[in-house]
């Protein structure tokens, strides 16, 4: 029962309160407290890392909290991601000070960022799915405030989509958890597998699995629920986007790994589902990135595509079963790489936006021509993500690529998997193409408007020293992982693979062997080809001197506006409201019907004076017509009397 775990999760939230209280006086105090909180958190993480390295399993259980219990646990994967989360939050918080310099309500942003950090650490440390869900929901709502920081129309609209996807995903996941609990009577991650082993033929378990996948996939940005990612990033502040695509998507992937590894460990059907979604996300993300002319939107779509890569890796872990060492290590490493790369790239984008307040490629073109430090940093990030050898991206991409190749001979559907392998390579190529598009546009080409170009060139200091130190540190970590993969990358992979029930590889992986290098080279070649022909040719208009990036992607072709928004905001409410109004008005209309027919109030008769004249004045002639109607005339009663007597007589006669 190690108390440090809950402290790690709840300390940033407490820090958020501290930050708001301390920040009353001056902005400086706000950032000082925020940095202090994050430094303490990072120190705590390092201390925990040492504990985990020594091999003692830390866990914390309090069944009273939240009613459904709070159960945290630490192992390799969780520790690493806790550390990465702390590291990224520390870096972005330090960077935010300069970024938010001329922004409004800083304390709100800082408070909610720290709260999100606490919630994310909570998600990563959680040991049962209910605790995951609890922290997941808190993370969704606190990160919502980060997304809509600018509070302009687009931010609110993107926020609306973000919160809708988060709530719908959350509720779907909750439904899945209910069904799982119904069959397993516990949601402890460790016990789930052997409890549900023989239940897997029951369709309800699969429905639950899909629902939970939908919940976690929504946050990760998987295909059907990815709509919020390309919308949220351009409007969110750069550090927020770094966290959103770096860490929050990984929280979604963490959930996907749990449901895959703890319930459907060797189910081929589940693997196929993941593979399908992964491939589609990978390709769609890459294509959207190629077509996008907004810096941050490209990076967002690239995140979506990298999540596709990770999902493919995860699918391969399921397919490969016992010998999934390569796939496991590939997936894990690619997650780590992607987090760090996106941190670096988004911070660079942040620097650019900080200075120009512009994200459109045509406008920020040629900004970085003489900014050497920024150029080098961006280059490192771009090269790592494109999978260029000697950089960290290459390591994890090769692992996943090799795992696909390894699986092809083992499976009956070899043709399908070779197709997957080719798509994998093409997607890698596309990544390289859009990264080069960004790099060339900002740091190589000249801006079509020479005056603007001149202004860019003589703008010397782009960011203060603190931010530059932060960026350099991130770049260094990437290089360490990339240059000496066997030592650094393998160590990290060994540390994290137990979470995915991975087994140690039979033989050490030769990253720079000829086969891998050829694989990497092939994708770079495709990338260059796509850049030259598609981007240069198709997406740019070359009028005599200046060329211009065109927006070829038709903006009506947007899944959200085409399908989701009309469906959820207009069609479903209209149909349900019609039915419900029908039901709820039923007793009402019945009452109205009754009131107008049977229970209708009679009119108030006007008192006619004629009735009140005393009888003595009324002559007998007036009396007789007055009593109209047969039933009240005297003769009628005599008739009745007679009838009675006649009946009696008949009876009397009959009895004799």
């Amino acid at each position: 029962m190690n108390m440090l775990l809950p402290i790690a999760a709840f300390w940033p939230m407490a820090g958020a309160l501290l930050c708001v209280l301390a920040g009353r006086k001056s902005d400086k105090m706000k950032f000082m407290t925020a940095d202090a909180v994050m430094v303490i958190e990072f120190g705590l993480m390092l201390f925990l890392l040492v504990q985990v390295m020594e091999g003692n399993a830390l866990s914390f259980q309090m069944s009273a909290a939240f009613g459904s219990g709070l159960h945290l646990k630490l192992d390799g994967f969780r520790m690493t991601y806790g550390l990465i989360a702390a590291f990224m939050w520390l870096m972005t918080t330090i960077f935010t000070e300069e970024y938010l310099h001329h922004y409004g309500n800083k304390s709100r942003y800082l408070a909610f960022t720290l709260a999100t950090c606490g919630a994310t650490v909570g998600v990563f440390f959680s040991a049962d799915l209910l605790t995951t869900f609890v922290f997941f929901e808190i993370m969704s709502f606190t990160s919502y405030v980060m997304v809509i920081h600018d509070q302009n129309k687009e931010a609110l609209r993107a926020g609306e989509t973000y919160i809708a996807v988060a709530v719908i995903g959350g509720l779907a996941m909750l439904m899945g958890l209910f069904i799982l609990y119904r069959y397993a009577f516990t949601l402890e991650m460790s016990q789930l597998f052997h409890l549900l082993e023989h239940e897997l033929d029951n369709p309800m378990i699969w429905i639950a699995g899909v629902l939970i996948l939908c919940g976690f996939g929504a946050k990760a940005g998987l295909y059907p629920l990815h709509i919020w990612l390309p919308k949220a990033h351009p409007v969110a502040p750069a550090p927020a986007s770094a966290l959103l695509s770096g860490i929050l998507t990984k929280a979604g992937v963490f959930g996907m790994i749990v449901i895959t590894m703890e319930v459907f460990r060797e189910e081929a059907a589940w693997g196929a589902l993941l593979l399908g979604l992964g491939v589609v996300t990978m390709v769609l993300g890459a294509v959207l990135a190629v077509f996008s002319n907004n810096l941050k939107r490209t990076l967002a779509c690239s995140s979506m595509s990298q999540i596709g890569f990770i999902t493919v890796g995860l699918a391969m872990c399921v397919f490969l079963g016992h010998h999934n060492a390569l796939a496991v290590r590939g997936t894990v490493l690619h997650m780590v790489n992607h987090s760090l790369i996106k941190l670096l790239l988004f911070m660079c984008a942040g620097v650019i936006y900080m200075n120009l307040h512009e994200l459109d490629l045509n406008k920020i073109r040629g900004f970085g021509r003489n900014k050497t430090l920024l150029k080098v940093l961006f280059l490192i990030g771009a090269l790592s993500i494109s999978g260029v050898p000697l950089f960290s991206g290459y390591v994890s991409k090769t692992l996943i690529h090799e795992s696909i190749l390894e699986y092809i001979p083992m499976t009956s559907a070899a043709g399908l998997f070779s197709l997957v392998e080719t798509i994998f390579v093409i997607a890698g190529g596309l990544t390289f193409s859009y990264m080069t598009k960004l790099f060339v546009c900002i740091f190589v080409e000249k801006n079509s408007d020479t005056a603007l170009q001149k202004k860019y060139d003589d703008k010397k200091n782009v960011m203060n020293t603190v931010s530059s130190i932060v960026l350099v540190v991130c770049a260094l970590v990437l290089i360490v992982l990339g240059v000496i993969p066997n030592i650094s990358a393998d160590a990290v992979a060994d540390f994290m693979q137990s979470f995915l029930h991975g087994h140690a590889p039979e033989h050490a992986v030769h990253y720079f062997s000829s086969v891998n290098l050829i694989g990497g080279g092939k994708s770079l070649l495709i990338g260059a080809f796509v850049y030259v022909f598609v981007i240069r040719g198709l997406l740019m208009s070359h009028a005599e001197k200046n060329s211009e990036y065109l927006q070829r992607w038709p903006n009506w072709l947007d899944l959200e506006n085409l399908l989701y928004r009309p469906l959820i905001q207009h069609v479903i409410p209209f149909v349900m409201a019609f039915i419900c109004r029908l039901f709820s008005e039923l007793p009402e209309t019945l009452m109205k019907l009754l009131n107008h027919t049977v229970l209708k109030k009679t009119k108030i008769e006007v008192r006619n004076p004629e009735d009140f004249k005393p009888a003595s004045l009324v002559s007998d002639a007036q009396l007789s017509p007055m009593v109209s109607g047969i039933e009240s005339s005297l003769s009628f009663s005599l008739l009745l009397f007679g009838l009675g007597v006649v009946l009696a007589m008949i009876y009397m006669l009959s009895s004799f």
Partner: protein
Amino acid sequence: MKYLMLIAIAFPVVWGACLPFLRFEETDRSSRNKYALTGALITSALVFVNVFNFKSNDGFQLIQLTNKMSIVFDIDALSCVFLCMIAVLWPLAVLYAWEYMHHEGRENKFFSFYLMTYGIVIGLACSANLVTFYLLYECLTFATIPLVMHAMDRRAIKAGRKYFMYSIAGAATAFVGIMFLVEYGTSLDFVYGGTLDLVKIGSQQNLILLGYILTFFGFGVKAAVFPFHGWLPSAGVAPTPVTALLHAVAVVKAGVFAIMRVTYYSFGAAFLAGTWAQSIVLGFACFTIVFGSVCAWKQQHLKKRFAYSTISNLSYILLGVGMMCPEGLAAGLAHMLIHGIMKICLFFCVGVVMEKTHREYVPEIEGMGKVMPVTFGCFTIGALSLSGIPLFAGFISKAALGTASVSSGLPLGLVGLCALLISAVLTAAYTFEIVIKAFFPSKGFNTRTLCEFKDPTWQMKTPLIVLSVLMILIGLHGTELMNLLSKIAMNLL
């Protein structure tokens, strides 16, 4: 002992008859009123003396008409219930009439007939056989007609004429039923369990049942059963003491009392239970319950509304009686008593409103709750009791009726239960509509228009308050009353 009963019957008639001859001038109101009240009080005292030391079947034969038919008076348990009700309510009505008749005029004629009716009703209650009962039943009609036509204007005459025709027609049909009893019954006396000679009936059972149905509808006219209820709302033109006492308590209850006598003491409940005749009785009773409440909700005229409410509540009693089982009779008796109290109190309140403010319609009494608190306070208690809210008298009889109708096990019993519940809701609707309008006028209403109306004098207030307190007392502690009634219904007393 025998003569005491005769005195109790004859005294009010004589006392009322000689009232006009004492030539009280129109102006010398208080002495005549005192005279009338003393008459009523003495009669009530006589009645209570009779009731408390009555020994069954020491009847007093007045005249021997034929070998089978004779005029015999004798008090038994059932008549005690009826007598107690009348003895309590009649003096209160006379006291109430003091101030009310002030602006109606012709008070000598009114009070004389009022007292004479009192005697006739006592006679009706004490009659030991069907012939005496029928005789007094007819006299009751004749004695009440001048009361209904008191105002002697066109409307009153029309109503009186209508009332007269309905009653005579009803009595005629009832007479036919009596013929069946003469032929097939061992005797015309009222004997618990009926006096039918089953041997003689043998196969003609349906004929006898037809006879019973004729009697039911004959006496049903006075008990305002559905097709023959027309006279009761139009009798509302009579002054309030008449409508309150006669058309809510004495006359209509005489009809119900007649049906009880005929069902349990002439034809016999055992003979009628489970037959198609019982279904007809229950069917009409259930329909009238709902019909009465619906018409009461529709009716905007205050008196007509409570007249229709009486029609519905009378059928509550008939529903209980129609169950043909002791619990049913006990429930019917309980509702007869409690409804009498409730309805007379409500009619008195309405009478006060009409007399003091000359307003007769529901929308016109807006905001009067503050100006006439005592009247509308008693009205609210009456409303609560009538719609069967617990802790008030109405709930006791409604619970008894509900349990009786369910425990009979008949499908029509359940229909009766539904009718009871629907009618309870409608009763709550049409009574609380008045309470809400009186106590919670709408926003724009300025109360200055009502400033000249105020609560009536003590003569009118005392009956209201006495009746309201009675209702709450019975509501809070009705155990002895219900035990007594169920003993009477099982003929153990």
